């Protein structure tokens, strides 16, 4: 009991900050990834070069990246958010790109043959058909971002990572768990919410197919 008396308020604030980092960076990452994925799927010949480059980027440890950004941008939330957004991009980008390329040619030909413009084909046929794959990418990004957001505390910007760092530094298991368990719960809740979103976004006709 005494733990919550001591840390309860801070824990709630940390949870809120953590959630804020996750949501903003995932939303930003999603928008960028979706647009980039669509663009790359229009020019698969360039995508063959661009995608591997981006995936190399992905292997830079978050701790390094956030550190570098910190040097340039300083100790502001934007540092954390842009770092997390960059990491959130890749899973969504990759799934958007492959999801769009996996749309069977017959549908695209049928759409063309029916007199759909390329934009109509994209919005009415390709994106709906790629939506299961895109949502899967979104879910991966979200779950990763919840854990990556722990790094925010490294540059003193709060979030649940704070508890974990302090816990590790002071060898206090209770504090480590106080940071770890809520972030696990956050990941679970967010992924359940994405399931709800999937139900709303993925067209009924293809739900049973995949």
């Amino acid at each position, binding site marked *: 009991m005494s733990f919550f008396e001591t840390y309860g308020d801070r824990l709630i604030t940390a949870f809120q900050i953590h959630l804020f980092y996750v949501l903003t960076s995932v939303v930003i990452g999603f928008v960028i990834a979706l647009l980039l994925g669509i663009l790359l799927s229009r020019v698969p010949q360039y995508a063959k070069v661009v995608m591997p480059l981006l995936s190399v980027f992905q292997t830079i440890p978050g701790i390094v990246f956030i550190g570098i950004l910190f040097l340039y941008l300083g100790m502001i939330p934007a540092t954390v958010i842009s770092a997390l957004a960059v990491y959130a991009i890749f899973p969504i980008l990759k799934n958007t790109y492959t999801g769009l390329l996996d749309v069977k040619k*017959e*549908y695209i030909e*049928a759409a063309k*043959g*029916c*007199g759909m413009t390329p934009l109509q084909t994209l919005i*009415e046929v390709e994106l709906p*058909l790629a939506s299961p794959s895109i949502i899967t990418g979104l879910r991966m990004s979200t779950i990763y971002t919840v854990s990556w957001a722990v790094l925010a505390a490294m540059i003193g910007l709060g979030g649940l990572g704070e508890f974990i760092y302090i816990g590790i530094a002071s060898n206090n298991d209770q504090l480590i768990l106080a940071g770890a368990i809520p972030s696990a719960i956050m990941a679970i809740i967010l992924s359940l919410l994405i399931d709800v979103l999937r139900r709303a976004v993925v067209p009924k*006709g293809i739900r049973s*197919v995949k």
Partner: protein
Amino acid sequence: MIRFENVNKKYGNSVILDDLNFNIEAGEFVVLIGPSGCGKTTTLKSINRLIKPDQGKIFVNGQEISQVNPVKLRRKIGYVIQQIGLFPNMTIEQNIGVVPKRLKYDKKEIQKITRDLMEMVDMSYEEYAHKYPSELSGGQQQRIGVLRALAASPPIVLMDEPFGALDPMTRATLQKEIANLHKKLKKTIVFVTHDMNEALDLADKIVFMEHGKIVQMATPEEMLANPASPLIRDFMRKSALAADTLNLTAADFLSANVISVQKKKSIRECTDLMARHHIDSLVIKNEDQTYAGVVTIKDIKKHGKSSGVIGEIEPYQNITSDILENAKDSFDKLYSSGDNYVVVLNNDQTIAGIITKTSMATAMADTLWGDMQ
């Protein structure tokens, strides 16, 4: 309606369309056929600009199509593909409404069109309109594929092997339906297939292509009578071979070479006849030429005397089969009855011929390897 003028198309070094010139009249059902790689699909797809020729002009409705916005052009030309390509994320009604929606028809109108079209192919609007393509069978899906092409009542419909992926029974049904639709709606239809039977059944005109050129453009009757090249003849023969064996009837297998006699013929004459033809039975006819039965040499011996007429002997009621009966049923009878042959009767009960095990084998060899006689 559709005119090709000196149309050429190359992919790399291979010539796909070689100076193509032809004309399709309004309301015609034209079938493009030929071996794979002959350019039939390329020809079809250049009509709605899915493929752009390197040279030459294509006119649709008097307009040179390279001058027309391709999106607008395609909305006036129905298009059906082999893979069906119904959008799985849309309901049947939404699929049918794809083109009308783009042409800004209102919702009620689209609903009416959907209902009317579905009625034409005997699919209930209530049952199917709000289903998704994955809930329909292949045949039903392609029906909808055809309806989608017809929805905005385009004057021209292009079909690229639309029934190629369907089983033979469904294909036959859909062929009938498309023939009816064509009769009813008077569309200009350009239809690609590699199935000569399909071409012969459906076409007003068949365009036979090889190496990007037209070898022959003719009505089915003309092509059957005077195939312009050995390849066309070959195509026809193969298609005869593939002719639905299900549709063969007793008529295809009978031997008309049957010895039959009237009841009033004397027994002596009958035995002579049998001896001369090396046969041991005769088919007996009533006076009105209808079938009465069969008398064998054994029956005559049993009868004892050679005076009198054959009608005195009670004829054996041999197994018979109607001339329009399915061939397989006739064979089953032949094997299960133990009789030496099946007597095939015309509709008026007169004798058309008999099916023996030999005539059956010959006819089968005929179907398989061409003319054996």
